[in-house]
């Protein structure tokens, strides 16, 4: 057991860019001593519900490190030159920076927006084949093997979290197969989550931390002792368009 945890930690740290980053995430890792990754051959369960809390107050002006982190991890976006033919409006964006300005006060700030991993996801409700799906642990994915590319989920998603691939791709990354004619969105870095469980850090969060902003907290919303639950209990959090009642997995602070 312990060997196992060790292994995962070693790998995890190895995967992060620098020592500074390692330091800053270290607390999270150690705090979760008890939590552990599920064994690879066990299915995920509804005991966990993975989510993220994003503190927009920490989100720096003009920063887009999280976006580039995601691109690197999952192989999309211009830095990978992944969709050379598509027009800008046609290129996929799993996560984007949205700038807000309050029309009355003029207060402006920014936040990263990606799939909110809704508990009651409209994209899943409408998908004719069941390709859009929510795993037991709350992660919403597209099972591209049965996605027919109808784009109804894109119509239905209130957050424009999804993108359609408009052209043939090559040399995708192993962790994120993606290809023409199917729809995709943030996977909550599911490959990391499955590997590291509660210790996982999605690539965006990792990049944000590496940049020193540390706006993300990833964790198990079902576990009252998790960092994310404790933070939410302490400071609360908002859901974007909470009026829709979708019970989002991604929460924000400071909007």
């Amino acid at each position, binding site marked *: 057991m312990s060997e196992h945890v060790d292994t995962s930690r070693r790998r995890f740290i190895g995967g992060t860019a620098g020592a500074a980053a390692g330091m800053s995430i270290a607390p999270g890792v150690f705090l979760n001593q008890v939590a552990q990754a599920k064994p690879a051959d066990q299915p995920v369960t509804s005991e966990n519900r993975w989510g993220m809390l994003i503190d927009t107050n920490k989100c720096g002006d003009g920063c887009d490190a999280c976006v580039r982190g995601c691109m690197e991890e999952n192989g999309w976006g211009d830095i990978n030159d992944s969709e050379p033919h598509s027009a800008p*409006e*046609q290129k996929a964006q799993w996560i984007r920076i*949205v700038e807000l300005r*309050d029309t009355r006060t003029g207060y402006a700030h920014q936040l990263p927006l990606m799939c909110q991993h809704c508990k009651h996801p409209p994209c899943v409700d*409408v*998908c004719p084949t*069941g390709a859009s799906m929510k795993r037991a642990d709350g992660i919403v994915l597209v099972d591209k093997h049965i996605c027919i590319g109808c*784009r109804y989920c894109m119509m239905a998603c209130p957050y*424009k979290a999804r993108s*359609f691939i408009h052209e043939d791709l090559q040399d995708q990354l192993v962790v994120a197969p993606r290809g023409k004619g199917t729809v995709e969105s943030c996977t909550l870095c599911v490959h990391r989550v499955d590997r590291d469980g509660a210790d996982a850090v999605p690539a965006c969060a990792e990049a944000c931390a590496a940049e020193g902003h540390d706006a993300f907290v990833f964790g198990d919303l079902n576990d009252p002792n998790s960092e994310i639950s404790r933070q939410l209990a302490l400071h609360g959090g908002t859901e974007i368009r909470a009026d829709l009642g979708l019970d989002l997995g991604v929460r924000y602070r400071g909007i």
Partner: protein
Amino acid sequence: MKKTIHFREVTNNGTGYWGLIGILGLIVAIGLGATYYMEHHGHYVTGMNNQIVWGIPHVFAVFLIVAASGALNVASIGSVFGKAPYKPLAPLSGLLAVTLLIGGLAILVLDLGRPDRLIVAMTYYNFKSIFAWNIILYNGFIAIVAVYLWMLMDPSKKQYSSTVGFFAFLWRLILTTGTGSIFGFIVARQAYDAAIMAPLFVVMSFSFGLAIYLLVLMAGMKWTGRPLGDALLRRLKNLLGVFVGGVLYFVLAYHLTNLYATEHHGYEHFLLLGGGIYTQLFWIGQILIGSLIPLAMLYHPGLGRSRTAIGWACALVILGGLTQMYTIIIGGQAYPLVLFPGMEVSSSFYDGVVAEYSPALPEFLLGIGGFGIALIAVALAVKVLPFMPQTLEDAVADPHHGGATDAAAGKAA
């Protein structure tokens, strides 16, 4: 003497018929070519993008699907409401309903990101999805109308035709409601989040379906040299007028109720005043060309008698219907999602701005190809099976008009 209407295959064999088949075949071929082009390269060659995910193909497809259920209306009036003059119109009406639906579905399927996975679409069902339900509704519609046509056309099964016709009628109501709900279920989009969407689609189907039916009927009877009575045509065009008026009424009701709810003001302002092309399409395309002018033509004492004018009125209703679909489908997507009420938003993903959409030619070709599929199927079907009545003279088809007795009318049915 009891006058009976006989149905007969189209026997035209001349250049006219095969020329028509040739032209329609070409349209279908071009549509398929466009599809190949789009699927081979990927959707980047279209104007569709991650903001406007449903484009021109969907405008045509949804229009055809909606019109399909409306085309069955003529048969329903005969079978379900027992209106004798409509009975001889029923087989063609059923046929058109099926072919229009097939044309519309073909467009949808050919525009999928992965049309090669059609088998997946047929074997995996998410029963929570209204879309999946629609697939079942569509297949069921084709099946039930096929049975209905069988009952209508097999003399030994005639007695069942009104029962099956009734089911077909119910089914089609559910189907249009289902199609409307595709939009109704999209809660997040300002344009679609309205209960009135479903009844609006039902009236739209009446109107578009009848317009297409009328055109096909007039052309079919004329080109095959079969008489079509004035009184019958007058009934049909008056009915069309009622439906066009109905659509206008529901559109009015829709926008009025929207104006009542504050959260929809933005979208209403966008569509009715400040939406540029969408506003123009709404007022000029949908309201003026698609509703007011045809209404005027249909009810004008002089023009209303002219077959050419009726034909043009139908064409305008169809054109108006397509623009209406455009404003609903494209306009609804172009208007930005409201993520943070009260805030101005912007991003690299075009949040907060009206989305751009400039449709590419292949999209139109695919859409028109769908029409081609529907029409070529009609043209071929009337040649191999007796869908069309040999005559629709008023004296035979519309005995009340001819002043014949009720008994004769009963028999004519």
